[in-house]
């Protein structure tokens, strides 16, 4: 018990009552935020327009569906495609790992907006060639192009997450499993992945959040996702609440996801806490 007493003595004295400078500043800043939030709420109440709402709320809902399906399809396709890329990154074959490295470097080093343009306008400009190959129907649709670009992009990020997670598992785990007679795939599935998932969960959650945020840029290539509908509503009504509502929806979505990931992380690391 002497240790805890020593710690208790070492603790700094409790925060003084009064009004130190930091507290004045803190209250002022919180006050500004409260004022700002109240201003937005007041604006939304003041500018409440039943007609605007009736007209655009269904479109927003539909846009939300588009955003969610775009993100989920891209995440899944990206996850599938990240497997060979991650394999290539970890491979001892120089050619394979070089290729995978270039792939990852390109997609992480260039803006997603440029990649999306490159797919939609760039590949789309080869219309005759695409028609002969029979792929024009795919690259004609902005939504498919968005999915294509987003999948390739997230595959690069997910491959790095996967690689990092697998490499974070110590070599001894592989060797131990090998000495027990498990072959490599079994080792990966039963020994390495369960440990890697714990490491990978948070980056995967962050990647999902980043994808949701990034998905707003498909609005620029004429996909009517959440942002696209907001752009349309603003262009028609010149009412800034079009963007305020969409900002609120994105913020709520991201916060739900963030807390969800934290909750899952707490659940799957229960055995690590004591």
């Amino acid at each position, binding site marked *: 018990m002497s240790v805890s007493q020593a710690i208790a003595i070492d603790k700094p004295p409790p925060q003084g009552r009064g009004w130190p400078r930091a507290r004045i500043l*803190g209250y002022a800043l919180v006050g500004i935020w409260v004022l700002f939030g109240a201003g937005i709420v007041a604006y939304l109440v003041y500018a409440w327009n039943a007609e605007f709402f009736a007209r655009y709320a269904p479109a927003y809902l539909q846009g939300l569906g588009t955003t969610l399906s775009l993100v989920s399809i891209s995440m899944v396709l990206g996850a599938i495609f990240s497997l060979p890329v991650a394999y290539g990154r970890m491979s001892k074959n120089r050619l394979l790992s070089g290729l995978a490295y270039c792939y990852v470097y390109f997609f992480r080093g260039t*803006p997603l907006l440029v990649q999306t343009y490159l797919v939609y306008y760039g590949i789309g400009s080869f219309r005759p060639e695409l028609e002969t190959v029979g792929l024009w129907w795919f690259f004609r649709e902005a939504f498919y192009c968005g999915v294509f670009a987003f999948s390739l992009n997230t595959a690069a990020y997910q491959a790095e997450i996967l690689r990092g997670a697998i490499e974070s598992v110590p070599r001894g785990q592989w060797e131990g499993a090998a000495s027990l007679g498990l072959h490599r795939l079994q080792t990966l599935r039963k020994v390495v992945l369960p440990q890697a998932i714990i490491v990978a969960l948070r980056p995967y959650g962050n990647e999902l959040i980043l994808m949701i945020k990034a998905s707003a840029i498909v609005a620029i290539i004429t996909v009517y996702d959440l942002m696209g509908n907001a752009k349309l509503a603003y262009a028609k009504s010149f009412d800034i609440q079009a*963007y305020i509502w969409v900002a609120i929806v994105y913020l709520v979505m991201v916060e739900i996801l963030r807390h969800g990931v934290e909750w899952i992380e707490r659940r799957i690391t229960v055995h690590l806490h004591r």
Partner: protein
Amino acid sequence: MPAQSIWTLLSWGPDGWSDDIASGVLVTIVLALATLPIGLTIGFFVAFAKQHEEPSLRLAANIYTTVFRGLPELVTLFLFFFGMPLLLQYIVRLFNPNATIDVNSFIAGMIVLSLIFSSYASEVFLSAFRAIPKGQYEGGYAIGLSKWQTMRLIILPQLIRIAFPGLENCWLSLLKDTSLVSVVNLAETLRQSGVAARVTKHSFLFYSVAALIFLALAILSSIATSYILRHLGRREAR
């Protein structure tokens, strides 16, 4: 229209587009470099507030990062680009009823990128703050330095060294995020390449050029940062 070879299109001068794209690259670099000090300063103070013992300061800083990390960059940009003139106009019209306000897209981009960059940088600074043991502060106070002196002379040099790799990532994403400002008509790399693509109908060529330029900027910055890192490392070793 005579068929132009790729090399004519990419040449420097009235027929080619290299000079236009180069001016765009300059805008991209200037925008990123102009954002960097503002973002770093705000990020540092936000991180400072986040690890402060005063709960109200922590709350204010947490709201800041939650908002600007939670909003898509594009939404923040549009909110500012379209919303700020309205707000400013409302305020200015209280004094001068005939004033009109126009927001420069460079300024709007700079503000938005600073907000986003600083909220990400603050997380990096925060973890660096947590990596510095308390004894460093106490040592500083013990030899009679004031709070501010301790921060400047003892904590900050270590903080920069710890935070540097994380800040490099923030810088790379800042560089990539500058492309978003093309959406509000700032004539930066992507915008200029897009104009060239639309005029010449060689979309694939010019968007590839834009992609390669961003790639080159990323490579250049990683060369620069590894140089700086070596420099920092040497100072530490001495």
